[in-house]
């Protein structure tokens, strides 16, 4: 089969940041009507390649050819006008505007200079409908969980070229880890959408750390390691083991047998006891007992109330019914401080808006929670601080391993690790992890799961939320199933518990 001409060709791409060569001499091409995976570890340079292509960063060397014409793209707007639509790794929308406004912002339908609000809402609703999503476009974006916001970002990017007919329409669609917080159903919806666009001849660049997803939808892939090109392969020519080897530069041991992991014999003391805890509009009153060293996994669909439950246990939202005791003491949960004081830690799923302070350094972000609990008058002694930070940078393999680097400049996966380090350093009794492996590459993902197991063996309790059911099942002693903002079942994990049984429970709302 003769190869058609690529719609996009990047050659000899170089991008340098102060002290880091993020891309050196990378070639990349994209054919019309293909789904192309860009693969690599955290920090390999995937997002940077995308941002260079879309004009967020300027190029330090190399050429970009679009449709056979050499182009220089100086800004995201220009990229959009040239037919390149992008959904960046971090959702970049305005939370206090409505979904419809977010979809159309910057290119609202106008008549005589005035925005036609009715038309805007109607068209937004049509778009959302066409993609088979159930979203009220007049509600503020912030009223939806992160995953829905991510879908909105995708809808927004696709919408370029529609509306008033400006621009050539999407030729290239770039999706940088769009599935990291989606459930299976949303992922399938997204894939259906991607296949439809592919048939229309759109070239799609897809980044994901879920290998199964890559093998499900992609045709071709390009692998990066440490900012250099490792190779381009047809997906059908390379199996998963081979791919991982290319990405890491070495073979990786299979995920260790984590199933063995059992509750320690001295577990059994109740650490956290929630009675009738609830919040209207958030989650219906629930009872939950968490024992020392126990890992509780929460399963449920998007919007089923997993995050809401976690937030109540941390005092991030104030409960309006019920009570919580931690270690036998009643905790008021009127603010995160109360929970933190009782030894609870919470890694939010939304690392950008609820987690990191992008302007501060890796070191400052890591010590923030510990420092906050000591108060401003008692700074952590420098030597102790540096030692702690170095220890966790090493333990979690944060790259670059430079405590002075600004967190905003780290790759997505490494930012996630910084957030994790921040809470581990406080040595909590209960660690709440909301999508802790979001955006983390497979090597690091296995590391984090192992870490959860060893923490639990050392007696730390963990509340674990993940979109991937297998992950929840692998780690948890007990699985809490949520449905429609209600905790419907608590299932002791065992060999007879499978993902399909959990899915049944989610679907029916009861556990047999």
């Amino acid at each position, binding site marked *: 089969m003769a190869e058609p001409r690529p719609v996009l060709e990047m050659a*000899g791409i170089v991008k340098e940041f*102060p002290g880091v060569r993020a891309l050196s001499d990378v070639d990349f091409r994209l054919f019309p009507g293909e789904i192309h995976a860009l693969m690599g570890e955290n920090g390999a340079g995937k997002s940077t390649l995308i941002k260079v292509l*879309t*004009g*967020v960063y*300027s190029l*330090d*060397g190399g*050429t*970009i050819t*679009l449709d056979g014409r*050499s*182009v*220089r*793209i*100086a*800004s*995201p*707007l*220009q990229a*959009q*006008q*040239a037919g390149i639509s*992008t959904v*960046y790794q*971090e959702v*970049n929308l*305005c939370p206090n505007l409505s979904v419809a406004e977010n979809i159309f*912002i*910057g290119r609202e339908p106008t008549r005589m200079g005035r925005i036609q609000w009715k038309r805007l809402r109607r068209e937004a609703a049509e778009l959302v409908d066409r993609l088979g999503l159930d979203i009220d476009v007049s509600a503020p974006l912030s009223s939806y969980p992160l995953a829905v916001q991510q879908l909105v970002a995708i809808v927004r990017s696709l919408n370029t070229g529609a509306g008033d007919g400006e621009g050539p329409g999407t030729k290239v669609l770039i999706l940088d880890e769009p599935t990291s917080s989606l459930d299976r159903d949303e992922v399938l919806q997204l894939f259906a959408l991607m296949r439809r666009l592919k048939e229309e001849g759109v070239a799609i660049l897809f980044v994901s750390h879920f290998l199964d997803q890559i093998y499900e939808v992609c045709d071709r892939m390009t692998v990066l390691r440490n900012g250099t090109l490792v190779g381009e392969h047809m997906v059908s020519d390379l199996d998963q083991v081979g791919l991982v080897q290319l990405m890491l530069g070495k073979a990786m041991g299979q995920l260790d047998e984590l199933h063995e992991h059992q509750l320690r014999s001295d577990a059994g003391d109740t650490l956290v006891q929630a009675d009738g805890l609830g919040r209207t509009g958030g989650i219906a009153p629930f009872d939950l007992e968490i024992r020392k060293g126990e890992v509780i996994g929460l399963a449920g669909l998007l919007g089923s109330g997993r995050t809401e439950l976690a937030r109540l246990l941390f005092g*991030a939202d104030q409960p309006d019914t019920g009570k919580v005791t931690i270690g036998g003491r009643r905790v008021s949960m009127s*603010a*995160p*401080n109360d929970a*933190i004081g009782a030894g609870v830690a*919470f890694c*939010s799923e939304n690392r950008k*808006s*609820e*987690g*990191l*302070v*992008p*302007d*501060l350094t890796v070191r*400052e972000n890591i*010590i*923030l*929670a510990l*420092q*906050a*609990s*000591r*108060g*401003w*008058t*008692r*700074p*952590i002694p420098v030597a102790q601080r540096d030692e702690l930070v170095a220890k966790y940078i090493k333990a979690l393999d944060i790259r670059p391993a430079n405590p002075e680097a600004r967190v905003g400049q780290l790759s997505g996966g490494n930012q996630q690790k910084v957030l994790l380090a*921040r809470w581990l350093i406080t040595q909590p009794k209960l660690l709440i992890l909301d999508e802790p492996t979001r955006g983390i590459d497979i090597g690091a993902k296995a590391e984090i799961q192992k870490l959860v197991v060893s923490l639990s063996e050392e007696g730390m309790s963990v509340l674990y939320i993940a979109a991937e059911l297998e992950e929840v099942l692998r780690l948890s002693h007990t699985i809490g199933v949520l449905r429609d903002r209600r905790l419907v079942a608590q299932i002791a994990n065992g060999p007879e518990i499978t993902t399909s049984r959990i899915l049944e429970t989610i679907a029916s709302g009861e556990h047999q």
Partner: protein
Amino acid sequence: MTTSSTTSSRWRALTRHHLFWPVAVLVLLLLVNVPFTPDFFSVRMADGHLYGSLVSIVLFGSPLILVAVGMTLVIATGGIDLSVGAVVAITGALACSYISDQHDQGALSGVLLAMGLGLLAAVVCGLWNGFLVARMGIQPIIATLIIMVAGRGVAQLITDGQIITINSEPYKLIGGGYWLTLPFSIFVVAAVVAVTVALTRRTALGLLVEAVGGNAEASRLVGIRSRRIKIMVYMFCALCAGIAGLMISSNTSAADGNNAGLWIELDAILAVVIGGTSLLGGRFSIGGTVVGALVIQTLTTTIYTIGVPTQTNLVFKAAVVIVVCLLQSPKFRAKVFGAKFAARFAAKGGAKPAAATADPAAATEAAPKMEVS
């Protein structure tokens, strides 16, 4: 080749230092004065006091530095304090009216009491601002507008709408006196700056302030008591303004409720911005602010020495401030100087310089609105 590349990388490291542009502008502004005032840099001694343009810039700039240092912390938390000018007026009015009521205006105890009274009033103003912002959740710009407007009225009430003049040797010291050949106010400023730096960088206060300003929600979830921190910062800012108020009234031996500290809030905000602290909050630099305040003060001096017509004073000042702010924006620098660098790189790499832009018109108008993270 090697030497040139190391010097160029050293130069680049230098230009990237956060104080580089503010200091460069300050030096430039100082140099502009030389053709007009040839002895601009000379400092001479008379009556055991040092005199010279540089000394007066620091002397007259002292109140601004104080106010700007306090403002820096407020801005770092993501707030702003418009009331500092009014606080300057209130403090001066209270102190002077107390002293003028004394039999012996030169009595040290009376002067100390007057200053304490003035500063107490300032701190109460700060507490009020902090309360409105942190407890009531009012936008800082609105919350501090209240004292900005009402405070002047209070100052006038205190002075009965008059300009109170006093004659007090000890009071004169803080804003107009000399010590060890230097204006005493320089020592006051040095002490306040030193205390501020120690307070923020020797403790964890600076970090927590930057966290609150950099990401308020993340700070809440990390357990930072941001309300408490904000209240403290507004009180500290008002205290600095209060000291500036004492200085200004002491310098003129008079309290003018109407004009003391008028528009100083704007100069202070400018100084903070020139010093490299973002109005959005987060990272702050006290050193930068001091340089920024000196830039503003030098600019004011320069306007007089080079004889800009009085009517165009403000326009001239605005123009310089715009240039300074533009120079500090990396995006602007990339746009203006970037083409040269890119061409140089392309030449080195052997590639054709800047493969034709898709659409030059789009390139210039393409101000990214929201895509850039």
